[in-house]
């Protein structure tokens, strides 16, 4: 027994040494190809002019912190989820609530609209991802049609339909991501690789949609949805960062001495030139991605901004906050 224990310890030690040397080698490889900075490339590009953006709608109805939201592809409906266990489907244009469901758990940290607009998915501390089909009948009891699709061993942190209503990708506090078949609830593929809670995920914006990024603990990330070759993260250290997937490295940091509170969520404008970052100091910062400068600070929320998402056509973006409201900005 003692011998076996020793052998095991040795293997672990060897593996640790190997992983350290591989990491160093990776850094070296990445460093070799870093021959120009983004601000140098963008030097000749014109700076952005004055920028006016206002709250155009305020959605009130949640009884507690708004934790997550997603746009419907119709560009006007929104699903949002809250700490109080409620999931609400809004017509953001008229600010009317179209559906509301109470989940059996608090902290509904994830919600997503199906591509067809006919269903929403959500979950949180129940460790599950449930799908609710939406009908035109607003009085219908949605809870009765609930379908449990995904099951994790810890809380659900994020979920997203792939390009169809048939499959859903989830991330969880159990350290894994997983792809599920909505109809049967069957696990199609499980993704391991993180050694900590996976907090967020986002699919690449391609038609085939077969790649995604996921992030752990302090960094909430959002894929560069425009072209799919880069993604951004917002982090507890109050910075946002841009990563180039082709160069396999970080290529820009968006920070200021005056910004000291963490960024909980980020998203890009349609062209990717603007980066919106929701912060814990109740503000939303708008960055010029290429120049690395801040072009606007948006005030309005009265508590932490937990989520920001640009609408599918890029005409507006929505922010959700711990002040129980969502705001549409344009």
């Amino acid at each position: 027994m003692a011998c076996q224990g020793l052998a095991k310890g040795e293997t672990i030690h060897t593996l640790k040494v190997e992983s350290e040397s591989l990491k160093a080698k990776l850094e070296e490889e990445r460093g070799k190809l870093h021959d120009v900075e983004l601000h140098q490339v963008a030097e000749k590009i014109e700076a952005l002019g004055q920028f006016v953006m206002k709250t155009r709608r305020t959605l009130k109805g949640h009884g507690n912190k708004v934790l997550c939201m997603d746009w419907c592809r119709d560009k006007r409906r929104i699903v949002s989820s809250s700490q109080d266990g409620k999931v609400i489907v809004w017509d953001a244009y008229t600010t009317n609530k179209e559906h509301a469901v109470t989940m059996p758990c608090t902290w509904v940290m994830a919600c997503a609209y199906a591509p067809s607009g006919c269903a929403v998915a959500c979950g949180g501390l129940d460790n599950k991802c449930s799908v609710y089909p939406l009908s035109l009948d607003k009085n219908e009891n949605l809870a009765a049609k609930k379908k449990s699709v995904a099951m994790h061993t810890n809380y659900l942190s994020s979920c997203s339909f792939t390009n169809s209503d048939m499959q859903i990708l989830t991330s969880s506090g159990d350290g894994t991501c997983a792809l599920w078949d909505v109809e049967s609830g069957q696990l199609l593929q499980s993704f391991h690789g993180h050694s900590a809670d996976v907090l967020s995920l986002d699919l690449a914006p391609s038609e085939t949609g077969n790649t995604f990024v996921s992030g752990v603990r302090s960094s909430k990330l959002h894929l560069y949805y425009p072209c799919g070759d880069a993604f951004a993260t917002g982090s507890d250290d109050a910075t946002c960062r841009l990563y180039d997937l082709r160069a396999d490295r970080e290529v820009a940091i968006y920070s200021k001495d005056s910004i000291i509170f963490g960024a909980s969520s980020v998203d890009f404008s349609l062209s990717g030139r603007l980066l919106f970052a929701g912060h814990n100091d109740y503000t939303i910062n708008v960055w010029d991605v290429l120049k690395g400068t801040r072009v606007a600070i948006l005030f309005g929320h009265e508590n932490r901004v937990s989520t920001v998402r640009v609408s599918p056509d890029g005409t507006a973006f929505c922010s959700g906050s711990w002040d129980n409201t969502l705001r549409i900005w344009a």
Partner: protein
Amino acid sequence: MDELDETQLKNHVDSLKQQLQFNREKTSVSLPELTKWIEEKMNEDPFLNPDILKDNPWVESSKCVII
């Protein structure tokens, strides 16, 4: 890292090996292309093109009428 068991560590090492095989590009190649892509797309960006901004459905035109 310390809390990983042998199997997890093995997976980790395999993943690092795979990452090393990853085909990388120089930033002098990838960044100008990324920049070009953004510049071309800026015309279609409702937040950046003033002509599209005018027709933004979320922005009400002024309801005041000068008599």
